[in-house]
């Protein structure tokens, strides 16, 4: 049977060619003593979106972190080792994050992850890459989901940095109670754990929303926004609308309001995840629309050049991140990068994964950072910042303290009260030139 022999041969040959091509092209690199650490280099990885609607808003994060690391590398690195940041675009999908995180750990062989972005995405990525079993440190994730604070069970190597969404919701609830009593309140959230966390926070603060509008991740656009707003257009008074989603969702809702001429009909309260004023303006929301929008933040405003941290990071951005406008996302990313460098230093010259985790647990709460609230790392807490101040955006894109005077509120993710910080927390002094020298 000549036909079947030839067919078998061709199939076998093609299979061999495909297999060897794949094997050769994806040969894992030689493993060093500690994965990702050599005498001259530390390899870190970040899985985040740089395309799609999430990429429009958060695409700057890896570049900003890299800019800070470049600055440190130009100034001696970490005990002589240069930091190399490998980024993989996960497109803000669960599937993408599973693949990206897996590739970072097993193909790029990074020492640790830093700044992984997203709630559902990182939950999937952490598991798919078996990070718990491999003991890969998971630093300063870009998500406020309280479930990541889980040292003893599901996320043994994870450290948060953002205050939890529950904390933010509780602070927002207090602001609404103090300033807008009697108004109807509406919550627009993703219908996943990101949104659930926020809803839980409002509930813990004893606030009941008039109505909640959940939408699927990636599923908010102007026409959806229009439907929501038309549904609440007849409510009397000036209702408060809480937009607790990603930046692209905030943009969609505000643009929908513009199209329906409803921008001044509501008091807008935008969650910190999606409220950077510069991004909103860059995505063509009108200045008049954002004027008066309330938001919450735990950092100084990116336009406040009187703040030493802002000034320093802004300078680094100009030199090492050319062409990128300095906004709150860049500020937050560089802040996390500075925390990362301090963590690597605190772990000592003999760098191991266990050592890094221990270092943050024992010394992390003393790290210098731009945050206006303290860091909560300890041997049993993986929570970073624990509070917010309320800002009001103006038409120029600046965020100023609501009510004129800066008031910082701290709380927890559970039933604890929201406390006003009096006297306000004093930050550790910024290391000279923004270059950490801790050990």
């Amino acid at each position, binding site marked *: 049977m*000549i*036909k*079947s022999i*030839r*067919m*078998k041969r*061709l*199939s076998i040959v*093609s*299979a061999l060619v*495909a*297999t060897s*091509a*794949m094997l050769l*092209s*994806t040969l*894992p690199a030689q493993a060093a003593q500690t994965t990702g650490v050599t005498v001259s280099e530390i390899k870190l990885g970040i899985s985040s979106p*740089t*395309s799609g609607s999430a990429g429009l808003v958060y695409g700057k994060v890896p570049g900003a972190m890299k800019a800070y690391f470049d600055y440190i590398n130009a100034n001696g690195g970490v005990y002589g080792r240069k930091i190399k940041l490998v980024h993989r*675009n996960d497109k803000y*999908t*669960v*599937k993408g994050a*599973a693949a990206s995180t*897996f590739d970072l750990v*097993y*193909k790029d062989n990074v020492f640790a992850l830093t700044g992984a972005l997203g709630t*559902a995405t990182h*939950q*999937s990525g952490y*598991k*798919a890459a*078996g990070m718990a*079993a491999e003991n890969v440190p998971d630093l300063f994730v870009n998500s406020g989901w309280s479930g990541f604070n889980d040292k003893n069970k599901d996320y043994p190597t994870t450290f948060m940095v953002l205050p939890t969404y529950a904390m933010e919701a509780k602070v927002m609830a207090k602001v609404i109670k103090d300033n807008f009593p009697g108004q109807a309140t509406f919550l627009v959230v*993703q*219908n*996943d*754990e990101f949104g659930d966390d926020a809803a839980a926070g409002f509930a813990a603060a004893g606030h009941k929303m008039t109505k909640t509008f*959940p939408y*699927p*991740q*990636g*599923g908010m656009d102007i026409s959806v926004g229009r439907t929501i707003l038309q549904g609440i257009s007849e409510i009397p008074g000036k209702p408060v609308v809480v937009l607790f989603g990603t930046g692209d969702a905030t943009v969609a809702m505000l643009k929908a309001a513009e199209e329906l001429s409803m921008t001044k009909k509501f008091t807008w309260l935008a969650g910190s995840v999606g409220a950077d004023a510069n991004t909103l303006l860059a995505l063509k929301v009108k200045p008049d629309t954002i004027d008066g929008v309330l938001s919450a933040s735990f950092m100084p405003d990116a336009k406040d050049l009187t703040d030493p941290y802002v000034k320093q990071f802004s300078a680094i951005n100009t030199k090492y991140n050319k062409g990128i406008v300095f906004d709150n996302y860049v500020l937050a990313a560089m802040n996390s990068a500075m925390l990362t460098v301090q963590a690597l230093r605190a772990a000592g010259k003999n760098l191991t994964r266990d050592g890094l985790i221990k270092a943050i647990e024992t010394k992390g709460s003393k790290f210098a950072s731009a945050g206006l609230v303290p860091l909560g790392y300890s041997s049993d807490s993986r929570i970073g910042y624990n509070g917010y101040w309320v800002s009001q955006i103006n038409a120029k894109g600046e965020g100023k303290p609501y009510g004129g005077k800066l008031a910082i509120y701290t709380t927890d993710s559970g039933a604890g009260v929201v406390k006003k910080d009096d006297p306000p927390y004093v930050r550790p002094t910024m290391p000279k030139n923004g270059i950490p020298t801790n050990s």
Partner: protein
Amino acid sequence: MLSMTPSKKRLAIFIIIGWLLLLASDRVGPLRLYQGSYIATYTLAVASIILLTGYSGQLSLGHGALMAVGAYAGALAIGKAMLHPVLGLVAAALIAGLFGLILGFAVARLSGPYLAGTTLALAVALPTLANQFDVLGGQQGLPLDVGSSPEGFGEDFSQYKWYFWICALAALIMIWAIANLVSSKYGRIYRALRDNPIAAELSGINVGRQKVLAFAISSGAAGLSGALLVILLGGVSPSAFPLGVSFFVLTGAIITGLYNLKGVILGGLILVALPEIADALASRIGGSEGLTNSLPDFLVSALLILAVVFTPNGPGKIFKRSH
């Protein structure tokens, strides 16, 4: 060998392949095991398309939806109902098969582009249905953790080896079943359906019933591959089965050769290998972000067109003279 019947020979071959795979799994690292698991999963999906389109002649553009049904069924069975993974996978295949049975009835009267259009609409619509029902976890989806290996296997049995064992064995068993099916009289019946339905009807075959059955079995296999896929992802969510998945596995089937099950592993291999090769190529060239993200699709699509133009009946038939 000479004295074995074809079906016994087939069984022996599959058992040997299975044993070799399990041996190999000891010697390779997590990366290869993970890739191998994906290859097994996609090979199974390709086999289900070969059965449906290649053998029974029904073009479906919605296999992603069938995989999604199996995926959610598996997640509910193993995750919520706490069934043992093996039972859960069986449940996933059965539920997907049942769904395929119903769907097959609904579309039995449709042919050609109408069938394609309906399956396309299904592929787009079904994953979003999960948003409607809280029990399906909404947009967040359901987590699926098949846990680590049973204690009997020892400490060194990594998470990825466990995945590989599950995927490889499940795929092997199901493909063996399909191979038996198409070598039996059913295979001949399907080919008759595909090539000349009128003649088939005249010679006593109940065309409608056979089409529906083929749809059901193909759906069961696709559902099983969907359940395997979400084991690898660690969970199921609507975003795991976009329209691209249906096109992706159809491409694999065309490249393998729609009309013969023999080369099916090639389809799975190419579907996994090609994006990896593209990824490596793009990073070697050091191209832009756009290049890195688009090169895999470009290569797969190019290969699809080449396959359809130059080897429309499968790679083996280049040398075949017309009948």
